[in-house]
């Protein structure tokens, strides 16, 4: 396309202005995390300040912070592992051994996403209470598994569909069993798809807030629930809030950036490529 020099310059400027504007709250949080509490609320020290790691060390010194972080890691990884164990065989059989019920099952799985969490809050709370799952990592992992399973099956299904059937059939001729077929033929071929499915599940588990806030209180609470404790009106701890937030979002932001291109397909159930 022919674009004049001036038009190109203004497009560059405009696009960068928009990008920086959208990123500003994140950049500002990272910046504030290197301030002291007093310089964080001092208008004269908005940009010119003495950088310090004081807020980070204070956040980490509060022993619980690590506990919250560990809860986040265990619950996210645990739920994602469970999702993968359930979703890979399911998507495999739906993609390569479809039956008359496959289509209906896929649509039914999608329909469970339409169940608003708050619609089943009461039963979940009561079931969790009676099974002693309230405020446990196991309980939170289970609920995250339920939340992410339909999306994972759909996402894997669309990735598996693109793998030529001949390759798997050739393996079957050579006498490979179903387990071998999945492990040695399908998974290597579909690795990028499986990886991005797991990545999306990790991101959703890590950021999950509704069930974390309602079904956990202290011993299994993840970072998203911990950050919520900064919401008290007295708690004007801008620098500590920023440091705790930065540590909470940094790993998932990096993962999200790495996988962004492939995530689109999962987020749209394969409808946009």
């Amino acid at each position, binding site marked *: 396309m022919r674009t004049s020099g001036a038009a190109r310059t203004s497009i560059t400027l405009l696009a960068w202005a928009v990008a920086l504007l*959208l990123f500003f*709250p994140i950049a500002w949080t990272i910046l504030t995390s290197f301030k002291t509490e007093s310089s964080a609320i001092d208008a004269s020290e*908005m940009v010119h300040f003495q950088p310090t790691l004081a807020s980070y060390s204070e956040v980490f010194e509060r022993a619980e912070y690590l506990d919250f972080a560990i809860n986040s890691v265990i619950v996210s990884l645990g739920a994602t592992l469970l999702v993968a164990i359930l979703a890979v*065989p399911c998507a495999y059989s739906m993609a390569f051994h479809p039956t008359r019920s496959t289509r209906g099952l896929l649509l039914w799985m*999608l329909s469970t996403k339409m169940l608003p969490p708050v619609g089943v809050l009461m039963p979940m709370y*009561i079931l969790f209470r009676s099974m002693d799952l309230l405020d446990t990592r196991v309980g939170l992992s289970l609920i995250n598994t339920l939340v992410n399973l339909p999306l994972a099956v759909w996402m894997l299904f669309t990735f598996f569909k693109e793998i030529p059937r001949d390759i798997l059939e050739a393996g079957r001729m050579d006498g490979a069993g179903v387990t071998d077929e999945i492990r040695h033929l399908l998974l290597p071929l579909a690795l990028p798809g499986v990886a991005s499915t797991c990545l999306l599940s990790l991101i959703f588990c890590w950021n999950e807030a509704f069930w974390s*806030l309602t079904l956990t209180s202290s011993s299994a609470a993840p970072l998203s629930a911990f950050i919520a404790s900064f919401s008290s009106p007295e708690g004007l701890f801008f620098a500590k809030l920023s440091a705790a937030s930065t540590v909470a979002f940094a790993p998932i932001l990096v993962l*999200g950036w790495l996988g962004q291109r492939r995530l689109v397909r999962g*987020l749209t159930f394969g409808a946009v490529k």
Partner: protein
Amino acid sequence: MTTASQQRSASLLWTPAVVVLAAGSVIPLLMTLWFSAQRYNLLTPDLSGFSGFENYRHLLGDPAFWASLRNTLVLVGSVLLVTIVLGVLLAVLFNQDFRGRNFARLLAIAPFFIMPTVSALIWKNLLMHPVYGVFGIVARGVGGTAVDWFADHPMLSIIVILSWEWLPFSLLILLTALQSLDQEQLEAARMDGAGAMARFAWITLPHLSRAVSVIIMMETIFLLAVFAEIFVTTSGGPGTATTNLAYLIYGRALLQFDIGGASAGGVIAIILANIVAALLARTMATQLET
């Protein structure tokens, strides 16, 4: 193992996932329906029993319920409008060839990956706080007055935060859709004398329609269930100004322990979501044909 029995076992590998999902969704759903017809409050355990539509009648007669329903619709509608209109414009912008495009794209989509409790709190405190927030400081710096966002415009504040969270989502999807646009078709239209606006309206926009419908449906599912952002900023207030259906039900359930009432609200939330679901299923069904 014979091929036939292998085939049979392979075509049954979906069962564990389906059983888990069915147990985790159908059982709670039936329980919600059951509770919604019960007099059931954890604070008054001696008052119990079947109450028919009593919980529903009580809920429908409560002004707070209608306020929450209106707030839910305002919230979903506003965020959808903002994210789609801006999303289309920004996708066209970011689809242009400019210096550092890939890096600028990464910055623009970053808000989507930030956890909701963090997003809400950094907006409320670091940016929108009337005394110490960046907006207030900048406003006073240019001679204006700072706005007390959450006191004076609580709903608008929540809409701004949610739009910031969801704009990257629509941008990312629309950008992907734009990249599959047939450039030759655009070039042919240009040769035929179609202006930039005409090409946008007659070729680009129709090409994006599928992506837009997916965005509408996905965002609606999540926006109907918005909770954390309200929980950490306004707690539904002032009054019921920012109480959506999800937050209202949460209050009935875990603050007032009115299980019957909360479940009746839950059923209404489910019905609302299913109106959207019907539309989503229709779009997605065409996916299975290909």
